C-alpha cells in the first residue's frame, strides 16, 4: 500500500550530500589524484558507425544481468527492506535475469566525470542503463556516447510516452532517451510571510532581500531570467542569454540573493532563513509536512520543466536487456507502481488511470500528473553546442563567484 503523500522521502537531486562528497573527490582529483582519467583523445565522433534502427532480427535472449545506475530514492522501495524494489523483483521474475541496481547518481556533472574516461576510450562503462537529466543526455547524444534504442524492442515506450516529452531538439526521433521522471521548477515560498506570489518578478523583489535563494543549476536559474525578459527558453540566442545573466547580476549586486544552492534551500525555507526560493516541485511537496504554509507555484509567466532519462551508454554489454527494462517500466501498471512511491511527474500514458485504482489522491495530484494547462506553462531549456555550453557555464560561474 502506498504511504500518505506527504510523509514519503522525495529527495532527488541530493546535490547537498552527494554533490558535496563528489566535490570532495573532485577536489582531491584536482589536487592530483586522478589525473589518469584525462588522457587526451580523439573526438569521440570517430567511434564508428552507429547501428540504425535495424529491422527486427531473430529475438535475442535477455542476458543474465543488467547494471542499472539511478538516483537515490527514485524507485519504489520496500518499507522494511530498502534494498528491495518490487518493480525490479517483478522484472527479474518475468525475464529470469538479475538486476544490479545502484543508487550512485547524485549529480549529473559528477556522474559524467565517472563515465567519461571509458566512453572516451571507446570502452564499456560497466552500466547498461543510466538515468541523467535532459541537458546532460543532450550532451551525451552530441558526443555520440549513447546507443540507439531498437524501437522494435520497446513498443510500450513508443506507444505510452507522454506527448510533452517527445522529440526534444537533441533527440527528435526519441531513439536515445526514455524519460524516467520529470519535475518542475517554480516559486517556492512561505505564504505566511510573503502572501501569495504569482509572478517571476518576485525573484527580483527587494522585499525579500537576503531571504531569497537561487539555484546552482544554471538552466533553472537562467530560465527564470529569460522568462522575466520575455525570451523563449527554446530559441534564445547567446546575446539574450547574456542579458539574462545581467538581469541576475542586478539581484546579486543588490544583495537580494542570499545564496545559490542545491536542494538545501528546502531546509532553509522550513527554518525561516529563506522565505522565497527557486524551488523544485518534489522538494516542496515533501517539506509541506514540516511547514504547512510552504507553497509551490508555477509563475504565471511560465516555469521550467526538466526530466531525467533512461539512456544506454555506448558499448553497454547488455543492451537488449536494458531495452526490455525500458519497455517494462513503460507498462502503465509498472509506472503506477513506481509513481505511487516516487511522486515526481510521470511520463507514462495510462499510469494515471492505473494509479487511480489504488491511490486516487496521488492520481489527481497536479504535481504528479499535470494537466494540459500546466504542461503548457512549463518548458525546458534548448540544447546547446559545446561552445555555447562553455560560454554559458563560464558566465554563470562568474555570476555565482566560482
Amino acid at each position, binding site marked *: 500500500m502506498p504511504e500518505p503523500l506527504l510523509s514519503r522521502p522525495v529527495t532527488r537531486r541530493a546535490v547537498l550530500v552527494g554533490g558535496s562528497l563528489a566535490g570532495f573527490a573532485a577536489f582531491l582529483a584536482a589536487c592530483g589524484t586522478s589525473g589518469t582519467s584525462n588522457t587526451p583523445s*580523439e573526438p569521440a565522433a570517430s567511434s564508428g558507425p552507429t547501428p540504425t534502427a535495424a529491422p527486427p532480427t531473430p529475438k535475442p535472449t535477455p542476458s543474465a544481468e543488467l547494471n542499472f545506475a539511478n538516483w537515490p530514492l527514485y524507485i519504489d522501495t520496500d518499507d522494511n527492506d530498502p534494498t528491495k524494489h518490487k518493480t525490479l523483483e517483478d522484472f527479474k521474475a518475468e525475464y529470469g535475469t538479475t538486476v544490479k541496481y545502484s543508487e550512485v547518481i547524485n549529480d549529473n556533472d559528477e556522474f559524467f566525470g565517472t563515465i567519461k574516461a571509458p566512453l572516451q576510450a571507446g570502452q564499456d562503462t560497466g552500466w547498461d542503463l543510466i538515468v541523467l537529466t535532459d541537458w546532460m543526455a543532450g550532451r551525451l547524444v*552530441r558526443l555520440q556516447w549513447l546507443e540507439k534504442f531498437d524501437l522494435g524492442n520497446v513498443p510500450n515506450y513508443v506507444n505510452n510516452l507522454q506527448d510533452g516529452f517527445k522529440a526534444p531538439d537533441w533527440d527528435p526521433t526519441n531513439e536515445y532517451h526514455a524519460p524516467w521522471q520529470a519535475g518542475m521548477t517554480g516559486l517556492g515560498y512561505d505564504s505566511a510571510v510573503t502572501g501569495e506570489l504569482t509572478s517571476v518578478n518576485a525573484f527580483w523583489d527587494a522585499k525579500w532581500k537576503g531571504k531569497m535563494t537561487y539555484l546552482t543549476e544554471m538552466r533553472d536559474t537562467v530560465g527564470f531570467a529569460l522568462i522575466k525578459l520575455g525570451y523563449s527558453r527554446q530559441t534564445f540566442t547567446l546575446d539574450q542569454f547574456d542579458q539574462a545573466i545581467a538581469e541576475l547580476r542586478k539581484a546579486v549586486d543588490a544583495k537580494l540573493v542570499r*545564496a545559490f544552492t542545491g536542494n*538545501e534551500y528546502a531546509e532553509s525555507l522550513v527554518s525561516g532563513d529563506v522565505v522565497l526560493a527557486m524551488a523544485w516541485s518534489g522538494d516542496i511537496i515533501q517539506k509541506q509536512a514540516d511547514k504547512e504554509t510552504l507553497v509551490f507555484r508555477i509563475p504565471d509567466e511560465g516555469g521550467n520543466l526538466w526530466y531525467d532519462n533512461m539512456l544506454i551508454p555506448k558499448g553497454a554489454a547488455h543492451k537488449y536487456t536494458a531495452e526490455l527494462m525500458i519497455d517494462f517500466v513503460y507498462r502503465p501498471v509498472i509506472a503506477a507502481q513506481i509513481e505511487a512511491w516516487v511522486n515526481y511527474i510521470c511520463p507514462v500514458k495510462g499510469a494515471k488511470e492505473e494509479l487511480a485504482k489504488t491511490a486516487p489522491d496521488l492520481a489527481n495530484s497536479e504535481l504528479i500528473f499535470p494537466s494540459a494547462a500546466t504542461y503548457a506553462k512549463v518548458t525546458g531549456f534548448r540544447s546547446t553546442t*559545446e561552445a555555447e555550453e562553455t560560454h554559458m*557555464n563560464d558566465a554563470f*560561474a562568474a555570476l555565482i*563567484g566560482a
Partner: protein
Amino acid sequence: MTIFRHRPGLVPLLLLVPGIAWLAVFYVYPAFQMFLSSFWSGSLERGFSFSLANWTTYGAALDRYKEQFLRSILYATAATILTFLVSYPLAWTIAFKAGRWKNVLVFLVIAPFFTSFLLRTVSWKILLGDDGIALGPLKQLGLLPDEFRVLATPIAVVFGITYNFLPFMTLPIYVSLEKIDVRLVEAARDLYAGPWRRSGAIFGGVLGGIVAAVLAWIFELPVVPLAAVGALAGAMIAGLLISEAFVRVTLPLSMPGVFAGSLLVVIPAIGDYVNATLLGTTSTTMIGNVIQSRYLVSNDYPTAAALSFIMMAGILLAVAAYARALGTENLTAGRGL
C-alpha cells in the same frame, strides 16, 4: 634473516619501500599527469592537445581568480588564528588541570569527528540560523537588528572552518604541553618569575588590538570598535592571567605544537570549499570552489589543474617561509620575550 645481518644498511631502505611506492603510485604519478594537463588546450568534444606554449594558462588563471585566492588566504589565516585562540587555553587546561579527566576530555575534543564533515557543517546552518538558537534570543532582546545575519557572510565561513579544523590545532598543542616537565615551571617561580603585569598588559593590548582589527576587517565588521575591544581583552588576559613563568617556559616549549597545529589547520583550510559552499554566498567563494566548478561543471581541466598547482606552490612557499621564521630547531632554545 641472515642477509640483514650481513647488510644492515638494507633494513631502512626496505622499510621505506611501502611509503615510497604508495606516494609514487598515488601521488607523484597522478600529480605529474595533472601537471601535464595544465598545459592542455582544447575541449572535451574537440579533444585536448598538449603544448608548452599553454603556460599562459597559469597567468590567466591567477589573474582571473586572484580575488578567490586572496580570500582563501585571508579566511584560512583568520581560521588559524581563531583555532589557536580557542585551542591553546583548552589544551593547557587539559594538560595541566584536568587530572584524571584528561583522557575523557581529549576524547571529547575528537568526538565530533565521528560524524561526517558535511553533517557537522550543515549543523552550523541550524546553529547560526537567522532566528536560530544563537541569534534568535539576541534579536528578541533587541541587541541585534532584525536583518542581521551570520549565515551567508564571511563570519559563517570562517567559523565553520575554525570549528571543523579545531582538533588539528588542539591535539598537537596538547601533546607538546603534556610533555613539559612541571618542575621547570616551578623552577622559574623559584627564580622570581612572577605575574607578567606591566610588559604583559602592553604586549597583550597591542597584539589583541591587531588581531581583532584584522578579523574585523575580514568579517566586514566595524574595525575601530572591535580593535578597541580586542586590545582591552588582550591587555587584561596578558596582564592578569598570564605569568612570567608561562611566557618564559611553557609557551616556548609548546611552540612545536603550535607550529604543527597551525600547518595542519591552514593548509587544508586554504583548499576547503565545503564551508564556503554551505555557509557562504557569492562573495565568499574560495579557490576550492573555483577548482571544483572548473573541473566538474565546466570541464575546463587545464585551468583547474593550473589553479591546483598555483595553490600548491603558494602553500609550499608560505610553509617554507613560516618554517624559517619559526623553525623547530630554534624553538627548543627557549628564548623568552
